């Protein structure tokens, strides 16, 4: 049996396997990477993340996945079961550092980490003494990739961050990059914990407040968790300032220890995405295998006699099994080679879609799973055809093979219809959800908004740049602001002057100048907008949203907040802020991670990170005009003008990736199914050509002949599509669970999906049968 013999569908088989394996293996590898996430954590099953909990009177217990800076060291010191503890906190991200020689290098993330960081999050130290470096202020270690980017001898070099130009940091060591499937993959710079005070307020010893530290402990293997939790509770009772906490309204506070084992898969978004990807992967592999077997059965007409003759000559069944497995192995090998070429050519696309490199996908971590899948595919594609060959009767040695095997073929096709329909339904749902997220009213208008990150500028230069931009004819309005609306904000407690009771926590946008309301299309409900300052500075006044006003009415009985003064816990008692206006509620963050707290923003152009601008209209020319102005005024700052809508789209990148992956899976699945369907119809046309000819002779028209085929396919396709829709609906419901704000799933959308599949099937059937339906029937009768 020649594996590439003419008429045996080798091309179709290899094509199906290539498409199925490429999509299937890549997605399974991605799922496996998620399952083995953070494998770099040493002795993982005994490592726990510390999360603070707190409760106010009459409110539910809140849990926050970080702690104050001093918690982890105290636990290491006081709890005997804690072997080691560490903490880190992020400080800089996606910006550039400038070396002494003036060269600039971009990096992904810079964090402060303490000297025990590598005890728990292991990676190789390539240069330097990690313990010593991370204990010494002003020193840092950098990742291997950043070291290679900088080039040459990096140890001893000093650099400054673009957003902290006067604060040098010295590179004293290099560590091996963390794997792509780890929390620390983006970490390029580990700065020593004692350096915190140079760049931010130093809360490394705090037991409450400034809760920005990700803290971890490793326990002794024999530690009793209940006992440890009890000890932690007892410790907190001793060390926390309970009177202060109660005075500001807290009734309880604590530390929860969350096991890091399987933590990644506990995240609803990750888990649901993995389920969807695994389903798409299995669908692809299953469809490809089904198609392979379908082609084998379809090509039996050409092989049955050869097999029967061999049997007559005494060939044992084992020979057909081995031959079939050998043939499948060769086809599989060819498909894997093609897959490798495809992935090599599509490396960038793969990274964009999955967020990991092809190298990471096909690494040691995924090898065992992928090899197992390939072996299963091989066995399915080899054993089943071998079984079919072994059952071919000897009589076919001297007569024409005429078994239709329609049940087999239609069953295989039915599976493919089910799976393709299911994927199409899921795709439609994801597509609609993505579109819903992008176009949902966030309470502000950003379609004409662009922004520029000005972290690299300081003092009056930001203020003057904002005015220069506003003077451009293509710009309607600008506003300097501390942060973007699509970013989540840190929280501050709100108090009424003279009362130490903290009323509630709100999202503090810190400073933004007059013009923000107009630039972002906010709506003033009561009061007024900020008046713009004509110098760099700030005013003790704030804008709040309706939620803030409502909350103040509920907790403090204040009917109208406009004109009232409040204390913000960040600025403290010495700076009471007067509410000048209330804006209609708007959304901070995104629909994936949405800010639920009341919002406040203070009038000022200090601590500005962004200049937002409302353009007359969004055109490449207008963006270029603003960009040219920035480049001309501050050529060294490397400012980049970006569209706000792109920033919003980035918030939904995970959803977009899932959508794109399901789309690829769906298209590939449909493609394989259509290949199978085309093969089936071609085979049936050939097998039934005599019958069709007879029908035509006795009066059937072309359309009646085509309908005959369409009906025979419809019998299997319609129920399959119905099952596919039901499965698609179920998966869509599952998928929607990860979204707090989700699109509805009306039956009409699924009906349209079903109709689409029906139309495709009908089109294939009608096109494929057109020739035989058109031909002179006598030609087919002659062949008899």
């Amino acid at each position, binding site marked *: 049996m020649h594996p590439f013999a003419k008429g045996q569908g080798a091309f179709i088989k290899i094509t199906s396997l290539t498409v199925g394996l490429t999509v299937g293996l890549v997605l399974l590898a991605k799922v496996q990477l998620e399952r083995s996430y953070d494998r770099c954590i040493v002795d993982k099953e005994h490592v726990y993340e510390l999360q603070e909990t707190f409760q106010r009177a009459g409110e539910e217990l809140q849990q926050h996945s970080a702690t104050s800076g001093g918690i982890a060291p105290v636990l290491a010191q006081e709890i005997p079961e804690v072997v080691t503890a560490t903490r880190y906190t992020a400080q800089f991200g996606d910006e550039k550092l400038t070396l002494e020689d003036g060269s600039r290098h971009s990096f992904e993330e810079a964090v402060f980490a303490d000297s025990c960081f590598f005890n728990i999050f292991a990676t190789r130290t390539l240069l330097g003494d990690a313990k010593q470096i991370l204990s010494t202020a002003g020193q840092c270690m950098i990742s291997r990739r950043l070291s290679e980017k900088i080039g040459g001898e990096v140890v001893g070099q000093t650099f400054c961050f673009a957003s902290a130009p006067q604060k040098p940091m010295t590179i004293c060591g290099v560590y091996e990059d963390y794997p792509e499937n780890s929390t620390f993959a983006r970490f390029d710079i580990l700065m020593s914990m004692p350096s915190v005070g140079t760049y931010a307020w130093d809360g490394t010893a705090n037991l409450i407040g400034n809760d920005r530290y990700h803290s971890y402990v490793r326990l002794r293997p024999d530690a009793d968790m209940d006992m440890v939790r009890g000890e932690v509770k007892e410790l907190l009772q001793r060390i926390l300032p309970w009177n202060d906490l109660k005075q500001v309204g807290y009734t309880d506070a604590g530390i929860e220890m969350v096991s890091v084992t399987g933590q990644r898969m506990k995240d609803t978004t990750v888990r649901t995405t993995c389920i969807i990807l695994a389903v798409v992967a299995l669908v692809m592999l299953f469809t490809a295998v089904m198609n392979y077997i379908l082609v084998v059965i379809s090509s039996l007409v050409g092989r049955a006699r050869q097999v029967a003759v061999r049997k007559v000559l005494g060939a044992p069944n084992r020979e057909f099994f081995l031959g079939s497995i050998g043939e499948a192995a060769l086809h599989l090998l060819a498909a894997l080679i093609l897959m490798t070429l495809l992935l090599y050519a599509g490396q960038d696309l793969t990274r964009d879609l999955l967020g990991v490199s092809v190298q990471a996908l096909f690494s040691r971590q995924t090898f065992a799973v992928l090899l197992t899948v390939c072996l299963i595919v091989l066995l399915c594609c080899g054993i089943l055809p071998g079984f079919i060959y072994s059952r071919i009767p000897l009589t076919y040695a001297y007569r024409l093979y005429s078994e239709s095997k329609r049940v087999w073929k239609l069953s295989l096709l039915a599976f493919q219809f089910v799976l393709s329909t299911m994927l199409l339904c899921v795709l439609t749902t994801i597509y609609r959800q993505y579109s819903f997220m992008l176009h949902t009213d966030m309470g502000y208008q950003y379609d004409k908004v662009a922004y520029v990150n000005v972290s690299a500028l300081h003092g009056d230069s930001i203020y003057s740049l904002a005015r220069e931009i506003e003077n451009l004819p293509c710009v309607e309005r600008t506003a300097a602001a501390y942060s973007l609306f699509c970013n989540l904000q840190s929280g501050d407690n709100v108090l009424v002057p003279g009362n130490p009771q903290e009323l509630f926590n709100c999202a503090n946008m810190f400073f933004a100048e007059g013009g923000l309301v107009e630039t972002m299309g906010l709506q003033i409900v009561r009061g007024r907008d900020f008046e713009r300052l004509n110098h760099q500075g700030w005013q003790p006044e704030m804008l709040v949203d309706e939620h803030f006003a409502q909350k103040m009415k509920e907790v403090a009985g204040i009917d109208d907040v406009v004109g009232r003064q409040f204390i913000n816990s960040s600025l403290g008692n010495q700076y009471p802020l007067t509410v000048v206006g209330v804006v209609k509620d708007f959304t901070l963050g995104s629909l994936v991670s949405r800010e639920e707290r009341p919002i406040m923003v203070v009038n000022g152009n200090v601590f500005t990170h962004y200049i937002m601008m409302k353009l007359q209209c969004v055109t490449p020319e207008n963006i270029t005009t603003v960009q040219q102005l920035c480049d001309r005024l501050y050529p060294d700052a490397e400012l980049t003008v970006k569209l706000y809508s792109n920033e919003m789209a980035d918030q939904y990148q995970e959803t977009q990736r899932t959508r794109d992956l399901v789309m690829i899976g769906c298209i590939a699945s449909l493609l394989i199914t259509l290949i199978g369907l085309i093969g089936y119809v071609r085979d049936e046309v050939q097998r039934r050509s005599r019958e069709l000819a007879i029908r035509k002779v006795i009066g059937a028209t*072309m359309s009646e002949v085509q309908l005959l085929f369409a009906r025979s396919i419809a019998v299997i396709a319609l129920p399959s599509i119905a099952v596919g829709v039901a499965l698609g609906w179920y998966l869509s419901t599952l998928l929607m669970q990860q979204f707090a704000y989700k699109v509805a799933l009306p039956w009409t959308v699924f009906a349209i999906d079903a109709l689409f599949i029906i139309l495709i099937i009908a089109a294939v059937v009608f096109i494929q049968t057109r020739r035989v339906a058109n031909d002179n029937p006598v030609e087919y*009768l002659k062949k008899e």
Partner: protein
Amino acid sequence: MCLSEDKYILLPSLREGQGGGSAIMIKLQNIKKVFRTDVVETTALGGITLEVKDGEFVAIMGPSGCGKSTLLNILGLLDNPTEGEYWLDGKEVGHLKERQRTFTRRGEIGFVFQSFNLIDELTVEANIELPLKYLGVPAKERKERVEEIMRRMAISHRAQHYPQQLSGGQQQRVAIARAVVVKPKLVLADEPTGNLDTKNGKEVMDLLTQLNAEGTTVVMVTHSQHDASFASRTINLLDGMVVEKTLL
């Protein structure tokens, strides 16, 4: 070969070239059929002119490759001639499109083949019923007509059998039943006894003769002089031309 040598009396209307009158079922005027490929051109029919009267039983004979089947295909509207005119029951049908040919064929022409050409997946009853379905006959009437024809052909007891469960003679009777169930004006038979033994062959010829006696026009292609003897006239073909007509 030309029409003037014809031994038959033509109706005035046909003589005047105005198409067939009621007495003429088939009129062929200089019918040619040429098969072309990229490299070769084969003339299957070189200019056939003949007539068959309504109610006639005509046998077409000739050696293999003389164009008998090609002629039968053209007569049965399964294929169009390359040239010439074909008048069927007074209507020019030689250059109809596929769809029009199908509609003309339905109910007008019945076919009987040497290899029976029954549909294996359908029962005897369903095979016979099929042309009535395509003709749009209501289900009740279909049932009555199928039962009636099965009775006439003595195959009622085989109604629910499949073709492969029948003898050759029974299969050909089913094929004839299917051909005549629509009460066609013309039955075309392509070596109807070619696959049958003498006894069954005779039964089939008796059936065709009986149909003809009831008024159906029968045109039969055969190699058998014996079968041809059932016809009222024999047309001999050679190399795509009519070489002789014999009135029996």
